[in-house]
């Protein structure tokens, strides 16, 4: 058992099947679908509340997604803990600033990567709410329910993603 938990990588099929089974359990016992970007919105609202007070919660968007710690928020906190445990057990936890693929194309300087990641992050924070879900909420949970909105979303996630990645690495890089 421990040896298995210490492995650096599991087969993508084993991981996928386990995520599928996890989604049965979240539907059964919590009436919830696996999703991540709602937790980001809630955290953003909680931080804004610290600076601007309770009136933040009155914004129309936070009426829809109250910035409080509920199932979706503790779920996202769990993702952080779970990934850390996995990295720790397999001995792969290590502070890294520039991913390998990026370094090969654009060099080892930290700042260009951080700026790109920040711009991508701001876009992603906005886009995941614009699309009403992310790779988890649409890409896994919505598609497995055969939701029309989710299949359209995930197809356009990949169209946009593939086009932009090819532009970054095959045209610019």
């Amino acid at each position, binding site marked *: 058992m421990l040896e298995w938990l210490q492995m650096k990588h599991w087969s993508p099929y084993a991981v996928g099947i386990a995520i*599928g089974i996890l989604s049965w359990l979240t539907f059964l016992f919590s009436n919830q679908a696996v999703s991540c970007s709602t937790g980001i919105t809630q955290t953003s609202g909680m931080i804004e509340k610290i600076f601007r007070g309770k009136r933040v919660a009155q914004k129309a968007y936070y009426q829809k997604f109250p910035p409080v710690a509920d199932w979706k928020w503790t779920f996202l906190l769990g993702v952080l803990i779970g990934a850390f445990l*996995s990295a720790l057990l397999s001995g792969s936890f290590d502070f890294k600033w520039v991913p390998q693929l990026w370094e090969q194309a654009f060099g080892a300087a930290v700042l260009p990567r951080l700026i790109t*990641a920040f711009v991508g992050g701001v*876009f992603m924070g906005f886009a995941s709410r614009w699309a009403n879900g992310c790779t988890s909420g649409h890409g896994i949970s919505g598609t497995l329910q055969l939701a029309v909105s989710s299949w359209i979303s995930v197809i356009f996630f990949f169209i946009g993603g593939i086009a932009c990645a090819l532009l970054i690495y095959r045209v610019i890089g």
Partner: protein
Amino acid sequence: MFTKIHSKKGLQLVLGLLAGIVFGFLLQKGGVTQYDVILGQLLLIDFTMVKIMLSAIVVGMIGVYFFKGLGLVKLQPKAGSTGMNVFGGLFFGISFALLGYCPGTAVGAIGSGYMDALLGGVIGMLVGAGLFAAVYPRFSTLVLQEGYFGDITFPELFKVNPWILVAIFSGIIVLILYLLESLGL
């Protein structure tokens, strides 16, 4: 049957945390908390991410529709529109390639020590989500409502027994996975 459990707030917070820990653990073991694996997928040279997603969809779909048939599970499909899913989806894709993580994998990447996911990714996402909340009322009428079609599922759209579509989707997904493996991808 489990509706009593659903309304226990404290218990649900713990269950959410536990489910998140399992999900984060799986994402890290699957390798998708790495920028290189995500960009490898978008550059169509590493199909790890698609393999994880498709096998999760098949297994999840069969189970969730099975439990729904028993009356144990309520579906919760998201409402959609051209404005949200097509335009928002394309913008999501661009963000995905720039950042190299999606919201869940970015948080998981922090747990594995990727500082670009923390200082760039998650801090940026918090700013972006805050901006969205600020413009939401106007953005909703201008963009999100465009081509609204609601929270329908394919079985409702085609008015067929869900199991027919579960079988078709499963068949296609298994075929895609088989092709990926036989191409050595």
